[in-house]
């Protein structure tokens, strides 16, 4: 996974709000209310891959 220092500067690719990372492997934008998936340990920080709160990843 990525370092603590980097997690602290990670921002939402759509609105640039700082990403919340309370649980492991959950990267959430509190402003857009979406989560960015972490696939095999790799954060996928793409606007089109964002998962709205309350939904599961569709794949």
């Amino acid at each position, binding site marked *: 996974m990525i370092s603590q220092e980097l997690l602290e500067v990670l*921002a939402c690719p759509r609105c640039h709000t700082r990403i919340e990372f309370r649980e492991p492997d959950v990267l959430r934008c509190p402003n857009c209310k979406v989560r960015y998936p972490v696939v095999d340990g*790799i954060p996928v*920080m793409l606007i089109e891959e964002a998962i709205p709160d309350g939904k599961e990843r569709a794949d």
Partner: protein
Amino acid sequence: MKSKDLYPAVFSRYAEVYQKRLESIMSRRESRSRLRLIELVGAQPGMRIIDLACGPGTLTRVLAADVTPGGEVVGVDLAPGMVELARRSSPPNASFEVMDIEHLAFADGVFDAAVCGHGLQFVPDLDQALRETRRVLRQGGTFAASVPLSGLKESVWELIDSVVDRHLPPPPEIADARETRATVRDAGALESAAAGAGFGEVSVEAIEEAVVWESAEQLVSMFMGWWDFAYRIEGLDERSRQAFMDEATEVVRRQHPGAIKTVGRNLVLSAR
């Protein structure tokens, strides 16, 4: 066809061949334009650097060593297969993420420097990518980027192209990055684009890279596995591939019986 529908998938499929080739030209110091990026950003211990369109992480790893101790490097690429490969041999102070350089997932001003080795030519919205790069850099942080020029047509590549034309239809046209390709291959236009994105001091230099190939066989075999040709021959059966390889090798060898030297030209942007 659109850039983002083609390139990430193709680069993911051919990531390993790409890595092998890139590491070979880097270790022999033939990739002078990429080495120049490392000089331009002046990586020092403690710095935080972003490697845009990092591919298999070849530059990322060099930079990660340069910023040790205390620094870190992030490599981002739109091709998941490249990011996966990069992560396999990642030093502890490097990390890799799937990211679109038109929409970077970082807060403003958090990097001391940014590099992009041979990546800008693939970005449909170049201005947006340059503005994003400027945004995530701190004030005075340097951005250095290399792009290949296709202008100088070497006879050996023309020889291979003539064989390709006999065997294959033309490649799909990637129209959404046409303007980008024209801009990055014109020093003045590239400088203007960087200035327009908010960079103050901007300069572009041309760098030639000589590459030596052991033989016609080696050159043709590399060409066939390289992403921009490999995906075009995915539909060909083994016999047709062999026929292409034999013909291309023969055509090249007739004019270049021994080792072959090719020269590629690149532009390197430095902006801060």
